[in-house]
């Protein structure tokens, strides 16, 4: 007799029916042709900014060995468009919608969180405190523990929704930032955003990205992210969402075993448009083959 497989995981007060969701910026309503959104653990559109923003110079993507660099620059039509158009476009799908917020100041994060926190269609907020594409040569809020702590604490005041802090991997100690976010009141930690990177065409001597530097994603970065998930899991009791370089079910499982309760998949969808649901299927197959009833048993189960 088949036992019932539990793939439900919790992100703060939010229950996801499975741990697989898209990574912000690599997912849009347009992808419903490729995959069945109702199979996803959550829906997570691209980070939005308060005001419309044009995005960065082109080329905005380039490839590297087993990875890619992007510098889209959070091209966004602003929060009003998000409320009026993006959110409703996902209305017919079951999975909870997580809104990813990108802002230029703590005040703006607070302001946007207030608005989105009061929108009944939004189930959780992901605070993108780690986008390396902002002005200031790739620096980000999430590079400083006190800024991180302050930012999360202030947002915490204005909303009851689960708050996911999306950390940057471009730091000396991700544990320090994780602890700061936890103390600030985050409900979950996304480990992590892209690594700041650069590539140059040696013939033209020009950077392959219009904005010179950009965020590095794809399978190349996975070992760094797995390490960070493991490190964060040692110091924080918050659920971790693993993100960076997942291409298949085994990659996702590796992050779960390292300490992640859920995973996000970005770049993989560019290579395999059905990556999200394929990964979910591969995880389920693994659970069955390894006779594991509940995915939560796997979380952080690495034997060191």
């Amino acid at each position: 007799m088949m036992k019932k497989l539990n793939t439900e995981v919790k992100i703060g007060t939010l229950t996801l029916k499975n741990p697989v969701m898209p990574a912000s910026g690599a997912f849009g309503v347009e992808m419903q042709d490729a995959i069945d959104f109702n199979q996803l653990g959550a829906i997570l559109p691209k980070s939005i900014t308060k005001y419309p923003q044009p995005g960065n110079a082109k080329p905005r993507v380039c490839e590297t060995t087993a990875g890619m660099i992007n510098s889209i620059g959070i091209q966004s039509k602003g929060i009003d468009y998000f409320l009026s158009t993006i959110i409703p476009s996902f209305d017919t799908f079951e999975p909870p919608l997580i809104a990813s917020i990108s802002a230029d100041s703590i005040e703006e994060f607070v302001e946007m969180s207030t608005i989105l926190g009061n929108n009944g269609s939004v189930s959780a907020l992901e605070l993108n405190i780690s986008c390396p594409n902002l002005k200031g040569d790739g620096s980000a809020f999430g590079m400083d523990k006190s800024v991180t702590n302050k930012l999360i604490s202030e947002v915490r005041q204005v909303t009851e929704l689960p708050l996911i802090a999306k950390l940057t991997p471009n730091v000396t100690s991700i544990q320090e930032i994780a602890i700061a976010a936890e103390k600030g009141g985050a409900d979950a930690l996304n480990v992590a955003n892209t690594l700041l990177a650069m590539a140059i065409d040696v013939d033209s001597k020009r950077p392959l990205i219009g904005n010179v530097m950009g965020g590095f994603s794809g399978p190349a970065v996975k070992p760094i992210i797995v390490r960070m998930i493991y490190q964060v899991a040692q110091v924080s009791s918050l659920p971790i969402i693993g993100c960076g370089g997942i291409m298949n079910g085994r990659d996702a499982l590796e992050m779960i075993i390292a300490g992640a309760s859920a995973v996000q998949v970005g770049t993989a969808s560019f290579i395999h448009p059905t990556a999200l649901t394929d990964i979910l299927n591969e995880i389920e197959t693994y659970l069955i083959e390894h006779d594991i009833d509940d995915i939560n048993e796997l979380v952080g189960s690495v034997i060191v």
Partner: protein
Amino acid sequence: MKQYKAPVLLNQQVSNRYWHMIVNTSMLDQSVEPGQFFQIRCADKYTPFLRRPLSVYRINEHTTEFLYLVKGKGTTEMTTIEQGDTIDLMGPLGNGFQIDSSMKTILLVARGVGVATLAAVAQAAYNKQIHCVAILSARTKEDLLAAEFLEGFGADVYKVTEEDGTSDVTNVQSIITNEIFGKYKIDCIYTCGSRRLSKLAQEMSTNYDIPGQIALEEHMGCAMGACFACVCDVMDGDVTKSVRVCIEGPVFPLRKVVIE
């Protein structure tokens, strides 16, 4: 749009820098239009990592053909694919050209491998009994591809090359205004493959009040409208608007695009 593993029926070098591939696409559950493209996984490796966009060159009942320029890592890998192998492609993607049956004569202005994209237009036009006039521009005569293919569809083909010193914009302009506009009433201009020729085509379109369509190329990430890698600007009345080439294009009204 779906992802497929399609059997490769032919993959053959057709000139110094160009290759021709025919794949069996009988599994497609949707028709393919001229101007649409596929995202090709050039090799089953992580280097080259991203898929490559190639527009359809010829559209047949059970097969789709590509004409591609060997440029960098991805297209170089593609040349190692052999008949009998399968190729991983996703598509058809984007919006194709509009080819209105009421038209009589159309003008194609193609540079280099842009002809791959416009060849499919010539094929569709032929089927709709629309006459094609084409200017094909290339570096060398050897690179002037698909001329016979277009002629096979009854097109009048004008060839210009650097080699012959005939490909400068002024000369192309004079061919269009003196020879072509003299002989034919052009109902629509289609262009692809060169910034300079596109600007010229855009001017012609405006000055002579002929509608036009252009297929744009931008570096792509997702090719599904999600990532905003492939944006370009079009005019929406007086304001510029950012659009995604992969999903809102690659074909746009010629007069609206902001050619950088």
